[in-house]
């Protein structure tokens, strides 16, 4: 173990000092933030900031008293002017006007028949058709008032029916939104750990392959055993993954806390379920790390890998095909099958447990046991492959070579 830690320290220091790792360390959270905010920024760029000139013809005399107090023209980006000119006069003048303009008629028909006519020019944005719907409730209220309904009756008609979901858990009552966040936050955190350490785990593959390519393994193996070297790599890259998670949290946590300041994110994060989720992420890492370190020892030239090796590289991404079925039914058949397949299990479990209110403890227990068993088997196989493969200089190992090493 002492030798493994020496290798781990070396791998950690070597990579942490590497420029491209340092750049990607800081660039990744920046890119995440950029991708998260860029779409809304871009859609904001396309919007027309110029206000719409709304010319209200108000023969019924209701705008100032009954409509304006209920809507907020500034939020709607309207420039409202109560007009005395007729519709034809407005149309003549508005033809020369290049800015967005609307002529809105609030006459008796608007109150009695609920029919409001407005005229717009070419520059009027399409969103105006949505915005004008805000005039509906005050006009309806005015219409009911004219029909002779009391305030109480009017309230009963206009308020409609609202469904408020309330949940009872233990002694305290929480709203469903808060409840789901409480599950998603630790799940997202464990997902982040899994993602980060699996990504650095993929660097193990490069490291083992590079060791072959640069013909250093024999010198290193003159000081320690292949098992020490393999374990050292797995531990070292785990540390790198955790460093990555740490840096990402330092960069992203203040932004998340600021953006979702209405929720106690830290309180949601530090819940009793978190250790279970982190445990699942760590076992998942060990599984993929063992797989990659064994695979790396079979490849010297990454540009000429076989389909078999390429498929193994894709295994961490296999749970992606289960995302939709799991989101639609976290207890469905696809989710349950994914829970028991070792290579999909960590991601599927983290996703399901973030969605489910009641955790299926028996399924979790079986899945974790299966995962640990798989880690043990894969580690053993990887150890055998690594021991022979790392010293096989000058060529990539074929599938039959790998089978032979495993059998030996």
């Amino acid at each position, binding site marked *: 173990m002492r030798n493994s830690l020496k290798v781990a320290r070396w791998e950690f220091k070597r990579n942490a000092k590497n420029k491209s790792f340092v750049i990607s360390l800081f660039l990744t959270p920046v890119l995440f933030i950029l991708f998260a905010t860029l779409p809304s920024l871009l859609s904001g760029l396309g919007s027309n900031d110029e206000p719409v000139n709304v010319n209200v013809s108000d023969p019924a005399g209701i705008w100032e008293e009954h409509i304006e107090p209920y809507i907020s023209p500034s939020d709607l980006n309207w420039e409202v002017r109560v007009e005395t000119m007729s519709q034809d006069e407005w149309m003549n003048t508005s033809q020369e006007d290049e800015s967005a303009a609307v002529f809105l008629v609030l006459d008796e028909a608007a109150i009695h028949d609920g029919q409001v006519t407005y005229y717009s020019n070419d520059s009027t944005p399409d969103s105006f058709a949505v915005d004008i719907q805000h005039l509906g409730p005050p006009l309806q209220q005015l219409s009911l008032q004219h029909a002779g309904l009391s305030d109480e009756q009017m309230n009963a008609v206009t308020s409609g029916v609202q469904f408020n979901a309330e949940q009872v858990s233990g002694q305290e009552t929480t709203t469903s939104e808060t409840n789901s966040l409480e599950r998603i936050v630790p799940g997202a955190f464990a997902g982040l750990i899994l993602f980060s350490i699996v990504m650095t785990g993929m660097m193990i593959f490069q490291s083992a392959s590079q060791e072959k390519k640069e013909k250093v393994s024999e010198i290193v193996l003159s*000081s320690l055993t292949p098992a020490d070297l393999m374990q050292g790599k797995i531990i070292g890259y785990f540390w790198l993954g955790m460093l990555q998670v740490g840096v990402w949290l330092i960069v992203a946590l203040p932004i998340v806390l600021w953006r979702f300041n209405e929720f106690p994110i830290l309180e949601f994060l530090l819940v009793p379920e978190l250790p279970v989720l982190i445990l699942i992420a760590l076992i998942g890492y060990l599984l993929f790390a063992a797989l990659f370190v064994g695979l790396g020892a079979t490849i010297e030239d990454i540009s000429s890998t076989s389909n078999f090796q390429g498929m193994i590289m894709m295994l961490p991404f296999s749970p992606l095909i289960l995302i939709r079925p799991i989101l639609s039914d976290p207890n469905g058949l696809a989710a349950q099958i994914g829970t028991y397949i070792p290579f999909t299990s960590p991601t599927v479990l983290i996703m399901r447990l973030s969605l489910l209110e009641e955790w299926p403890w028996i399924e979790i227990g079986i899945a974790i046991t299966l995962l640990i068993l798989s880690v043990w088997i894969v580690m053993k196989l990887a150890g055998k492959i690594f021991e022979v493969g790392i010293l096989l200089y000058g060529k990539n190992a074929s599938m039959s070579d790998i089978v032979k090493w495993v059998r030996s």
Partner: protein
Amino acid sequence: MPNTVLTVQNLRKSFKEQQVLYDVSFNVKKGEITALLGPNGAGKSTTIRSIMGIIYPDHGTIHFNGEQKSQIPKHKIGYLPEERGLYKNVKIMDILLYFAELKDYPLKKAKERALSYLKKFGLEGKEKVSIEELSKGMGQKVQFIASIIHEPELLILDEPFSGLDPVSQDVFKEEIRALAKSGTAILLSAHQMNVVEEMADRLIMLHKGKQVISGSMEEVKRQYASFKCTIHGKNDEKKLQSIAYVTRVEQTDNVSILFLDQNLSPSEWIRELPSDIHIEEFRLDRISLHEIFIDVASDRTLTREEEENYA
């Protein structure tokens, strides 16, 4: 009598159906340079890798300093493999200290030794240079320093001179001799016979996994202190074979090589040669280590008797 640092006994190894080592046994002694010779595929690297514990022999024992432990103490051994390289994107000093750390050697002392060896090998001031910036020869010097940074009791060098220019070869030779003089036991595999003759105290020659020659350089020379006689001229092979002290004849066209028994007196033997031998040209030479090696490598019969003795 120098202490035996490494004892290899009856080493056997097979890969799949093919046996690559047959009962290889030898000792490496303190302060001595032992040469491991043999053509490509003779089993030298398999022997060395077995000693280093990189591969496991099927049979036989390897003991360090007479200890009966099953594992060789790796931190007491320095190793320069034939297929060697270094991590490309790290600094020279970092990699040297990493190898010293793997051998449990104090880092402060390792740093001092590294600086001193870098100076000795003309790499002064380059400790912060990245490996990828070095030439091949400079890289080999760094690899050599890495193998001796922890003051090993036993140093195993697999083809240390391959790829080196003559000046660097001399620097390496001098350093290897100095290490042996200071008490390091050295096992060296090499192809350059002149270098082996010049440096080695002891010799083991392998051929197809079998140990065909072994002993101190003096013993081997004495053992092969025989002569060969080259005669240009048309002669009957049987007639040449019947001459006293001739152990074997090789004949191609008009050239005959007569291998002679080592107990002969050259001047007497020449005097007693039959008068009817057709001689256009005549030469009497000692058999060199180089010839023994070539003979073994080309599978000729010079050492066949020896081979049978050792098999």
